């Protein structure tokens, strides 16, 4: 897995709240037996019309969304099905982070294991990001900070903190694995002896 420490990107915005994993990756694409190519199916029912043509005004299809690595989405992103195909699709499409006010638990867990950072921000920051699609942000995983360098003071709502650095929560372990580009199975396998002792104790 690619190591992530810090990157800059413009944002693309999907303002709907409660975007579920059926929208992110519809069920009919789940008959795959690999992880490859899921980006083509990302938001398929929103991105393509019934003839399979891209819908021009869907935010991801607009020219300015080209190359964006940060998705700003409405509240409670990733609810519903546990399908890991959702973060696979987002990562394959080119996203490295999703910003929302809240994430569904299973989606968040799946994302952290696939190099996709779920960034939780407060309501004013979230609203500002929704209102300013395409703004360039910096994600600093090491410092757990989201930086909004493009913000001009006059465009800020009063309740927004003056600093341009916004801390976001991420647990130490997931952060370490993302920064080192390692998966978590190796860590679990190191506990084989403890697992054996647990099994014997219960037998």
């Amino acid at each position, binding site marked *: 897995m690619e190591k992530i420490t810090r990157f800059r990107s413009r944002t693309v915005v999907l303002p709907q709240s409660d975007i579920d994993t059926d929208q992110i990756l519809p069920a009919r694409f789940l*008959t795959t037996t690999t992880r490859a190519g899921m980006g083509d199916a990302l938001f398929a029912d929103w991105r393509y019309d019934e003839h399979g043509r891209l819908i021009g005004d869907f935010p991801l299809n607009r020219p300015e969304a080209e190359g964006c690595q940060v998705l700003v989405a409405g509240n409670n992103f990733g*609810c*519903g*099905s546990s399908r890991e195909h959702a973060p696979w699709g987002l990562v394959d499409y080119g996203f490295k982070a999703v910003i929302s006010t809240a994430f569904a638990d299973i989606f968040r867990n799946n994302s952290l294991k696939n190099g996709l950072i779920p960034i939780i921000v407060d309501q004013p920051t979230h609203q500002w990001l929704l209102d300013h699609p395409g703004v360039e942000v910096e994600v600093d995983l090491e410092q757990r900070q989201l930086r909004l360098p493009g913000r001009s003071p006059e465009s800020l709502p009063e309740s927004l903190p003056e600093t341009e650095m916004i801390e976001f929560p991420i647990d130490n*372990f997931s952060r370490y694995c993302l920064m080192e580009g390692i998966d*978590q199975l190796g*860590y679990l396998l190191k506990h084989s002896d403890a697992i054996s002792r647990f099994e014997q104790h219960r037998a």
Partner: protein
Amino acid sequence: MAGKSLFRKVWDNHIVVPETADTPAVLFIDLHLIHEVTTPQAFALLKERGLTVRRPDLTLATMDHSTPTVPVASLSDLDLVAEPAAAAQIRQLASNCREFGVELHGFGSDERGIVHVIGPELGATQPGKTVVCGDSHTSTHGAFGALSFGIGTTEVGHVLATQCLLQRRPKTLAINVNGTLPTGVSAKDIILAIIGRIGVDGGVGHVIEYRGDTIGSLDMEQRMTICNMSIEAGARAGMIAPDDTTYDYLAGRAAVPKGAAWQEALARWQTLPSDPDAVFDKECSIDAATLQPMVTFGTNPGMVIPVTGEIPANTGDGSFRRALDYMGLESGRPILGTPVDVVFVGSCTNSRMGDLRQTAAILEGKKIAENVRMLIVPGSQSIKAQAESEGLHEIFQAAGAQWRESGCSMCLGMNGDTVASGQLCISTSNRNFEGRQGIGARTILASPQTAAASALCGHVADHRTIG
């Protein structure tokens, strides 16, 4: 020191390595249920790394999500009825199970069915166990006092390889349901009302314990319906304390302990209910006596009203407006009388014997409306056999409904059982998301009784008022 909750007792009993500020807990898993859709990439990982399945004896496989609901006698017949990608995925599960020594309930097995239906049926789901599956409706098994939750495919790989998961301890939410349930109000209506109350994100980061005398009065199938939809409130899991109803259901089933071991298990299970002084991170109370049959009107399970209610006024929220546009519904209008094209009775939420008997009681001696297509899909092959031994299939077929083989079917439309674009389906399943039952399909979630009554009328109906 405060007493422990049911959740906390089960959690503490499965800690292999405790969590620290820097590392999550290593949690032991007692039962790993697997199916064809969320496992191919996990088995591929094992092969890449030369790993084995650590505990095939704690792993149980079935095929349910993309399987046809027309008869398939064996894997070799699959190509006749399944699309090639689905057939390949189903075959891959069979070959992975063979290669790694995992028991599979495949085609031809009398015990095949929806993964969350067969776990309890076989007695594999038991109080105090940790149960996981690459499927969000794993919360179903919490009805037995198990800690059970859905995981992604990477985590499926972790459990296959180590029988453990890395987890942070979630918070707890007690939902107290007390009072006498009015006649005609079901477990499905209770859980839809709860999700309407706390919202689709109301349970995020929490394990729900459903408590109170109403919950205690429910049978195991009804408790499963409630725990099943915990995930639709965003909860990590849903649990109900085991009691005599639980033990009576489990007694004698294939995978439960027998003889002296059964007595020992009972003694252990009886210590699981939350201590009287247990403290929960959040609490919420519901008066069962005020509940009515519920139906959804939007595109998530929290957008729900009594069947006699009106579509709520637009909140001004863009997502709300979008949902009504998608559904073709208008604020201020009653939902009763909304024409339906398709009726689906099935899914891990409502496909068990009680659901089928209630559906049959409403359909018996009647015909469904002319323009309605109705699909009734039992949760497992053994439920199918039981229903047929009671003659329920004859009632369904005489009414004009289609009676199918078990599987997830039209709940998520992966197997070809879909709703056409623009059509409205009243469904006993668990998700009314955009396109869930087919591209452009519209879904109203409801109980089996409400679905059956609506099938007869050809529009959304109150089953309490049809004779």
